[in-house]
């Protein structure tokens, strides 16, 4: 009787430990995982075939539920500046980038909870249509992430820590698919 009880308790403890460890591993994906490939400060999944990897499926469910297949869109996510520090609304940042060969692209800013950050301007994103380019050829732009008003493309950061910027490329050109690790992606520098 005592032996059966010990087995039951150990089994239950094992299950709980397994669940705890799985949850921990999901959170660790962004910090230390072979699942995410880096291109500068930007991270991406080499494949969005979620059926192939339970850990990736769980992680994407947590940070971006109902993401699309990579045949439709490529997601690049940045959660640090160029120096590797987490993004915080205590700082101002300048994102410098170029146009992408894609049907539609956008930058959206999210808080630690993965939701849009409240701000008085009600501005949550910039995309290829509403961003102000630096040149008439619409090839380059600067985007400021700050809680204080900025001239030009200003993405208000409200009052948030551990923010992330999600770059979405819908129907990108083939050369982008082929060179996700090496294409030139925007820089994000702390400016204060």
């Amino acid at each position, binding site marked *: 009787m005592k*032996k059966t009880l*010990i*087995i039951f308790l*150990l*089994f*239950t*403890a*094992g*299950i*709980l*430990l*397994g*669940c705890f*460890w*799985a*949850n921990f591993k*999901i959170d660790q994906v962004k910090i230390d995982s072979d699942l995410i490939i880096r291109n500068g400060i930007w991270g991406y999944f080499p494949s*969005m075939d*979620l*059926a192939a990897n*339970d*850990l990736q*499926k*769980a992680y*994407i*469910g*947590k*940070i*971006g*539920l*109902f*993401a*699309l*297949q990579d*045949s*439709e869109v490529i997601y690049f996510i940045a959660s640090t500046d160029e120096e590797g520090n987490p993004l915080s609304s205590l700082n101002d940042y300048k994102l410098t980038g170029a146009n992408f060969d894609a*049907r*539609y692209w*956008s930058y*959206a800013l*999210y808080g630690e*909870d*993965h*939701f*849009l*950050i*409240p*701000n008085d301007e*009600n501005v*949550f*994103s910039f*995309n290829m*249509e*509403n961003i102000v380019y630096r040149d008439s050829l619409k090839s380059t732009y600067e985007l400021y992430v700050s809680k204080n008003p900025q001239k030009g493309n200003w993405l208000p950061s409200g009052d948030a820590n551990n923010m992330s910027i*999600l770059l*979405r490329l*819908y*129907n990108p050109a083939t050369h982008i698919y082929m060179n996700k690790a090496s294409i030139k992606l925007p820089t994000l520098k702390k400016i204060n």
Partner: protein
Amino acid sequence: MKTHRILYGVVLILGFVMGFKAFLNFYPEILFQGAKKKIGGLENVLRLGNLPDHTSKMVVKPNPDFMYVSCFYNLENGPLQLTANVSNANYWSVGFYEPNTINFYVKNDKQFNSNKLNFIITHKGYSLPKADDNIEVIKSKTKKGLILFRFLVNSNDDVKKIKRIQKNIQIKQFE
């Protein structure tokens, strides 16, 4: 005594492995059910979304450039028919998801030959009479899932236009 210790160790490891695998396996489904509950929990009913803002807390990382239409489907009572007339110059797409959050189908505006969409959504085990050529049959591995339309908004005029499009999307039991 030594045999007992080995047995206890095996039981603990077995529980750990099962707990680990089960958590990873069911976690996405829990998130799916959570989203369904937040959206209202209704099945086979379309939910027309406005442009997301900071108050949009139903699904993480909403795209603030998109207006969505969502529908949690249930094929327990047979196939469903989804129709729409989507005349819109901006990007739009329709995606289908399993309850484990896998996006098993997506098609965008450029991939449709017509503005008039006509889908029959059926469970893969269900035998369907031959459908018309203008009807696309979606075979879902699971009886439950999610349909998600995304409409790109570039201006205030787009909002009005897309609201009209949202309203003409219909889902009903296929007869």
